[in-house]
């Protein structure tokens, strides 16, 4: 276990809950005991925790609160509908009129409301915000891997089978794009060490046979006049998932072990 991993796990599991980390715990203990810098780091983290506990607990208690609570508890709870009188029923004609008015206003409400509901700006919810931040944070602490990206898509409600044989170390972004009205996962990879000096970029779209008739994609388009961009598919593509790659290089070995140039094959 290296120091980075140790710190990451420690931050997640702080204190008594280290046991939640399961097997990692043993190697964490070993690391903490043997690595001087991490030992000191843990001590400083614990002192921050102590500080935060004290500060968060430092709230002045208003004087006399206990008495006020006791006083309030002495009151009898308010009984609803105290006389037990049932409100009289409205007459039939009145209630018919009411139903009519109610129906008319409902129709207005529903049509106007539906339009408004579909078009109005909405507040950003905690959930979106959390997803966004969870994602940023995950990237900050460790390089991306397939599982995490897959989890992200599933948390967005997208069921997908991501490619196995690509180098997720080169992943720089993932998200959802719309293709013919369907939401499609997109992975963007970049290789800063490519030959030309500029980073090589490859975009991978994951197209599922549940959304598209994949055979309709063939033959894949050739390159555009004056553009180096080419479209291939990853060799691990199958009848259920087609991994479409667009890139601007002859080779995408950096992305996969052995790149297959599909556009030339399919023409």
């Amino acid at each position, binding site marked *: 276990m290296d120091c980075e991993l140790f*710190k990451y796990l420690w*931050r*997640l*599991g*702080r*204190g*008594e*809950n280290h046991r*939640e980390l399961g097997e990692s715990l043993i190697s964490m203990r070993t690391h903490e005991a043997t690595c001087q810098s991490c030992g*000191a*780091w843990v001590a*400083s*983290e614990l002192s*921050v*925790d102590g*500080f*935060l*506990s004290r*500060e*968060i*607990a*430092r*709230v002045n*208690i*208003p004087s006399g*609160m*206990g008495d*006020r*609570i*006791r006083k*309030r*508890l*002495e009151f009898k*709870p308010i009984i609803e509908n105290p006389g037990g009188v049932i409100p009289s029923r409205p007459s039939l004609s009145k209630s018919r009129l009411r139903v009519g008015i109610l129906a008319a206003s409902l129709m207005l409400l529903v049509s106007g409301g539906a339009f408004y509901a579909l078009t109005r700006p909405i*507040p*950003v919810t*905690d959930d979106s*915000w*959390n997803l966004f*931040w*969870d994602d940023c*944070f995950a990237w900050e602490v460790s390089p991306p891997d397939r599982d995490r990206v897959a989890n992200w898509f599933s948390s967005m409600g997208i069921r997908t089978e991501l490619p196995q044989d690509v180098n997720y170390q080169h992943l720089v972004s993932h998200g959802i794009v719309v293709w013919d009205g369907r939401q499609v996962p997109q992975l963007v990879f970049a290789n800063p060490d490519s030959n030309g000096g500029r980073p090589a970029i490859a975009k991978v779209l994951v197209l599922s046979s549940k959304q598209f008739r994949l055979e309709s994609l063939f033959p894949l388009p050739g390159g555009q006049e004056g553009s180096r961009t080419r479209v291939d598919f990853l060799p691990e593509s199958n009848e259920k998932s087609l991994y479409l790659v667009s890139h601007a290089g002859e080779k995408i070995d950096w992305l996969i072990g052995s790149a297959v140039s599909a556009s030339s094959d399919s023409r």
Partner: protein
Amino acid sequence: MAQLVEEWIDLHADFLFRLAYRFCSNAADAEDLVQEAFLKAKENEDRLSNGPDEIRAWLVRVIRNSWLLKLRKDKRKRDWDPTWVDELAQLSPIQRDQPDFSDIQNHLDKMPWAFREPLVLHYLAEMGYREIAKQLDIPMGTVMSRIARGRSWLRTQLGINGSD
């Protein structure tokens, strides 16, 4: 008044006020939440014959639920808080000349509720991650990462130097 509730007030009122205050950052609202929690406790006194830890957990749940209900009624508080964006822009480690500890509540107020709640429960109520996950009905991994992030954000805001 019944003996048990009396005891619970002595044992838990101060703690509950601190918790409620960190949730709603207003002494009047906080005391109101605490009073209501004990009212509920009195109504349920017969059923609540557990140990002090269980009673405390029950009271924490009542405070939390009442506060969330209030938040939902007062929807403005749940909406996007633009000041948070400004704070986010400053997430890069800035060092303050003097750490300002007096305004920890100001920082808590700017923290989205989803981060603030588990953080306060962890540090103030000294609840473990499993307990918080159960209380908030979210996965434990989420509790862990929210507390870790809330903590590191708070730390930056307070200018607490660390070795990371």
